[in-house]
């Protein structure tokens, strides 16, 4: 068969599809939507995962929390001296942080004590961070700045656990590009955090432990757990694994949204696969009667499946890309936002996994073509007279 005859069959198929344009455009619309939803979830979860892994590369190797009655408790800062004696530990630093509910904007902030200064060439902070011992100054995330209309030079007032208002001059504002990390942060000097939360003297929220060789971290964590049985060491590997699970292929996000789309697609494919309409059968019978071969009919049905599934796949994947990377996954935003008041206005970096796209294509285009061809093949091998009479 020459190329021209294949094109003739394709021309005929397109004409036949246009004859039933409402039905076929309906299928393309549903199919595109399924690819769009599935593609958006794949793009979103993969990019989140990759970004989280890159951003959290700088996290402490080991965090030591104290547990009391099954809950996270404040930890005595002086046990850091004991931990420092463990071979392989290069440093222990207490972290002072907590959550602050602001009734003014009904939002939760994360308050954090500054411990180090940022390098001067860091472009993601306007102004500066408060020094560890600074008092009355703060650096805020872009989300907090937007919620409280803050900028460098303005001041923010917070109510301490003791009931007295504490005023802070804003000396730094994190840039929008860092929102996924800093949106709800307020960085203060350590004495201010201790006073704001009325932390007992000598207590910290948890300890950040640095180790000389990261592969030794699990052994060090085991030793810490042995010496201080009421502690819970959290490895950087575990932090990364948490985000891997949250945004992974088996994530709740996928299960919640993909399951519905998958079921819808299975119903659509099943409907196609279980039989042809009387009109389609009649068309096949007539084509056979006027001299079409079974192979021609199968080719026509192949083109039909390909036109519908390929068009839907291409449109769906392009729309999914635009949705996730240009509009910040606005369709999923309400579910992702939850009840958060301060929500990062993130623009994800478009990390694309070609394997996932190939899988999506294999799971949508090929089964659809198969479900179009098989019933047609059954009709095409039957006697035309029998097919036309039904």
């Amino acid at each position, binding site marked *: 068969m020459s190329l021209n005859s294949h094109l003739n069959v394709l021309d005929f198929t397109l004409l036949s599809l246009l004859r039933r344009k409402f039905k076929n455009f309906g299928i393309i619309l549903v199919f595109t939507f399924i690819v769009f939803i599935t593609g958006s979830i794949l793009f979103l979860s993969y990019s989140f995962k990759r970004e989280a892994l890159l951003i959290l*590369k700088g*996290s402490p190797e080991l965090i030591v929390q104290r547990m009391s009655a099954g809950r996270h408790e404040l930890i005595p800062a002086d046990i850091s001296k004991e931990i420092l004696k463990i071979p392989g530990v290069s440093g222990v630093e207490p972290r002072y942080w907590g959550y602050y509910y602001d009734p003014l904007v009904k939002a939760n902030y994360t308050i954090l004590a500054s411990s180090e200064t940022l390098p001067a060439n860091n472009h993601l902070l306007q102004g500066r961070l408060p020094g560890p011992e600074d008092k009355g100054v703060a650096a805020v995330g872009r989300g907090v700045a937007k919620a409280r209309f803050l900028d460098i030079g303005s001041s923010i007032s917070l109510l301490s656990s003791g009931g007295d208002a504490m005023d802070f001059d804003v000396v730094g504002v994190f840039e929008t590009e860092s929102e996924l990390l800093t949106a709800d942060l307020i960085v203060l000097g350590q004495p201010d955090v201790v006073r704001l939360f009325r932390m007992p003297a000598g207590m910290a929220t948890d300890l950040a432990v640095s180790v000389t060789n990261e592969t030794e971290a699990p052994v060090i964590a085991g030793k810490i757990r042995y010496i201080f049985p009421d502690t819970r060491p959290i490895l950087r590997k575990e932090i990364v694994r948490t985000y891997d699970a*949250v945004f992974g292929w088996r*994530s709740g996000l996928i299960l919640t949204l993909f399951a519905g789309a998958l079921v819808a697609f299975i119903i659509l494919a099943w409907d196609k696969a279980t039989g042809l309409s009387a009109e389609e059968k009649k068309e096949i019978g007539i084509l056979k009667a006027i001299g079409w071969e079974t192979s021609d009919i199968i080719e026509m049905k192949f083109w039909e499946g390909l036109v519908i599934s390929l068009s839907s796949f291409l*449109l769906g994947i392009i729309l999914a890309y635009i949705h996730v990377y240009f509009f910040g996954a606005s369709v999923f935003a309400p579910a992702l936002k939850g009840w958060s008041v301060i*929500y990062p206005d993130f623009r994800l970096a478009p990390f694309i996994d070609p394997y996932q796209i190939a899988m999506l294509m294999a799971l949508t285009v090929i089964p659809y073509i198969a479900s179009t061809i098989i019933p047609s093949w059954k009709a095409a091998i039957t006697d035309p007279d029998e097919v036309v009479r039904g």
Partner: protein
Amino acid sequence: MRRSTVFGLFVLLCVCCLAALGVTSEIRVSRFLVQSRDLSGITAALKLTDISFSDDARYTRNPSQADIFSAFQDYPGSIEHFPSGSVTPPPDFSSLGAPITVKRR
């Protein structure tokens, strides 16, 4: 124009569109990789452990620091009442070893 030519042009247009998005993606990713050094610098300087993805509960703001059975605070697999918790899976318990079995005498 033949219908097959129109279809061919449509597919070509979509493929070109995907190629253009692929190029944009490469540019944006390389820009992000440069920026991620600054982000990682902030993480290291402030000793951050979590991304500010959802701040409606402490276990959705800091999933890596929350109780071991977060985001299902009452018991593993319980129905979550925070919308963002409903898209967070229960933790992987496979590392906890085999379940305890009671032998009959």
